[in-house]
């Protein structure tokens, strides 16, 4: 770790301590985590895929943020800090989920009366007690991107939230998180009105995107002083305006080569939106190179991770979608569970790590698989200023276990969200010493 960064870090620590001393605010805990091995997910250099890995490191946490991170010999633990002894374990960023339906209302969130629903937002029906959210931390998932379903071409707006927090506001990382659209399949099941065919669906999507673009342009012109007349206010298009202003990305449920290409062509090329093609099974990777060479096109695979009889190549091979995208130049791959409720039939939220492990199995390298559930997802969502990697200034969302995130045989031992310990596995044996401002030391070991 560099000297100057260390100095800044120490400065922050001092500030935090003084803040805490003022009282008045609810005091957030401070910890020093002794780590056997930290996989930070922080790129070692621009355009490098390698990430910084620290052996025998220390992470200082306070105010819910990472205040310092580096080799143990480079960091002095300030007095008054609690201690988490993970010196024989791996310490990694909390897992970020790109595409799920948990934590809100309890179903797969489809309002399907009209084919376009730009007015709807998941943030209006967050249910923090949903069992999917409750279980998420047991698998190390700390941030989730909860979306409306894919029953309509524009099902609404998503929310990005933490899986623990004492209030709704505390949990929400950003609302709206992204605009959710659907290119194919699920909306076709409705029938009876425009949008039964894919031509019809493409038109529905264009119809609303055109209106939204015009709306966003008009307001931008007004706010930048290029026009004098204030445009009319249309609340149903306000969230779409954020997408066109580049403030939130667009996630598009899409399948197969033609579908992924249509998503790329329409959302990214025509409407210049930061676009994530999500699912993409059935041969979507066949156009992976088109995604790969567009910086603002992201690929998110899952819950299906392989193509075989429904696919692009029909060659008797079991094609892992992850490695197929990677070999075609996609470097921002993320993986999802598409979790709904809590069940073993599909991928429940806490098994996002297992989705990544299975992608690794099918040919993706281990590190890229881990990035696909941390930093890559954070970048696709545009919340990488806060989550996805262990870096100074980012949220202290941390997973501690005896192996990598992908290792199936070892369970998650401890999870911190926003610097608070939110999950401790019984029998994990991680020693925690809580230090309070009155010299009392509380030591606990679960």
């Amino acid at each position, binding site marked *: 770790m560099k000297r100057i960064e260390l100095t800044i870090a120490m400065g922050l620590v001092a500030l935090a301590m003084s803040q805490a001393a003022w009282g008045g605010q609810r005091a957030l805990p401070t910890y020093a985590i002794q780590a056997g091995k930290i996989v930070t997910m922080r790129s070692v250099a621009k355009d490098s895929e390698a990430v910084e890995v620290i052996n025998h490191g220390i992470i200082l946490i306070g105010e819910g943020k990472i205040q310092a991170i580096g080799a143990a010999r480079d960091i002095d633990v300030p007095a008054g800090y609690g201690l988490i002894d993970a010196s024989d374990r791996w310490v990694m960023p909390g897992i970020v989920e790109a595409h799920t339906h948990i934590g809100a209302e309890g179903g797969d969130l489809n309002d399907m009366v009209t084919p376009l629903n730009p007015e709807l937002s998941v943030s209006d029906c967050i249910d923090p007690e949903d069992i999917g959210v409750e279980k998420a931390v047991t698998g190390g998932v700390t941030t989730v991107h909860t979306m409306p379903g894919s029953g309509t071409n524009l099902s609404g707006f998503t929310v990005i939230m933490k899986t623990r927090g004492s209030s709704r506001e505390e949990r929400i990382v950003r609302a709206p998180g992204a605009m959710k659209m659907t290119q194919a399949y699920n909306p076709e099941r409705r029938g009876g009105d425009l949008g039964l065919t894919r031509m019809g669906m493409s038109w529905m999507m264009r119809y609303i995107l055109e209106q939204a673009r015009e709306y966003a342009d008009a307001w931008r012109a007004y706010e930048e002083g290029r026009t004098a007349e204030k445009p009319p206010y249309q609340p149903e298009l306000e969230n779409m305006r954020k997408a066109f202003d580049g403030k939130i990305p667009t996630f598009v449920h899409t399948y197969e080569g033609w579908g992924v290409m249509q998503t790329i062509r329409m959302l990214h090329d025509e409407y210049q939106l930061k676009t994530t093609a999500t699912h993409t099974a059935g041969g979507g990777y066949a156009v992976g190179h088109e995604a790969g060479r567009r910086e603002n096109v992201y690929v998110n695979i899952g819950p299906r991770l392989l193509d*075989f*009889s429904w696919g692009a190549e*029909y*060659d*008797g091979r079991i094609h892992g979608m992850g490695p197929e995208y990677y070999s075609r130049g996609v470097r921002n791959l993320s993986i999802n569970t598409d979790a709904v409720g809590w069940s073993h039939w599909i991928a429940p939220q806490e098994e996002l790590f297992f989705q990544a492990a299975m992608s690794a199995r099918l040919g993706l390298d281990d590190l890229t698989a881990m990035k696909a559930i941390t930093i890559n997802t954070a970048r696709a969502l545009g919340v990488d200023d806060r989550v996805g990697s262990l870096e100074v200034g980012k949220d202290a969302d941390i997973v501690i276990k005896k192996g990598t995130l992908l290792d199936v045989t070892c369970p998650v031992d401890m999870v911190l969200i926003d610097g608070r310990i939110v999950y401790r596995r019984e029998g994990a044996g991680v020693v925690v010493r809580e230090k309070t401002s009155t010299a009392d030391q509380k030591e606990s070991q679960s």
Partner: protein
Amino acid sequence: MTDTRRSIVSRVFPAVAFALAGVCLIRAEARAYARPDVSSGAGAAEPIIAIKADHIDTVANGVVENGVILIRGTKIMEIGTDVEIPRTARVIDASDKTIFPGLVSPVSVIGLSGPQRGNAVSHPNYRVADELYPHQHEYARALQAGFTTLGLVPRGQGITGRGAVIKPVGSSRKEMLVVETGILWIDFRASDKMKGLVKRALESAKGKKASEDPAVAPLIEAVQGEIPTFLSCARAADTVHLFELIKGYDKMKPVLVAGYENYRIADRLAERKHPVVLAASIEFEEFTRNRLNVPDMLSEAGVKIACMPASAGIEDHEDFRRQMAELVKYGLSPKAARKAMTLHPAEALGVDYRVGSLEKGKDANLLILDGDVLDMMTVIHKIMIEGKIVYENPWGKTQ
């Protein structure tokens, strides 16, 4: 003259005269038999036709170039390059044409009603011949497609009855039928119910020579090998299960009507030396886009293949030559293809003593074509069944 000399002359001369007359008469008779007179009314012999052609593909014995087929009545009398054409023969000059045996479809269901849905059944006494209705356009269409013999089979799962061999011409059932109850048809899919059904049926006929029971008599014929037994098995597994069941029934004549998947046991089929009926189509290997030419695969493995149109409908009968041509295009040897359209199906149906190739003594069932039967540009000019021209193509190229 003395008296002695006079008595010898008077005795010898009449004897010699009589002898001479007798010899003359005998010779005249012989001559008459050697050259039957067509116009001599009742008891007249059958008409003779001689077809001269550039190219006579007998299928069984190679190709005769610039040859003649001599036909008397319904049968082929002779084929060769220096065949003496009788004076009274009607000559068909097909000099620039090809002669090929009429096509034989081993398995057809045209003109029959559809399958009765339901569980596997066993009614070997049911006969397709009872349903045969001659005046259907499908038969005319099948004829025009080149088929002179068709094996009609019953549908449905299990032992569904007995098929018939027909010619697609005739205005009465009797005229159409070549063999009235010729094939025992078993459509088999491995399950304990189906296996039990077949096992019981075979056991009811084992060791018997005859039965009063109309449901058992056909089974006896099948077990004794008097009629062929067609075993329709879609999957290789079905074939393996069924072959296990018929083990020991050595007189039986099993003809496997094989789904394409049977390519997986090509070597086992070759061992058995019985003909295998296959659809004339190219299939995809499971889960891939690799194309399989199963007729070629089995033929290469040494299996005697007979091809049937790719599906049940009349359209695939009309498309049959193109289907065979495609198989050849993708590897099937033309020789194997020609046999698969004619002689092998005839063998499968048990009528190769009559049809399936151009040979002396067989029915004069033949196609007069303006080119190779496997060439898609070739037109069938005339079709002959049992010595009669039953079809002339009105759109043929000018001669």
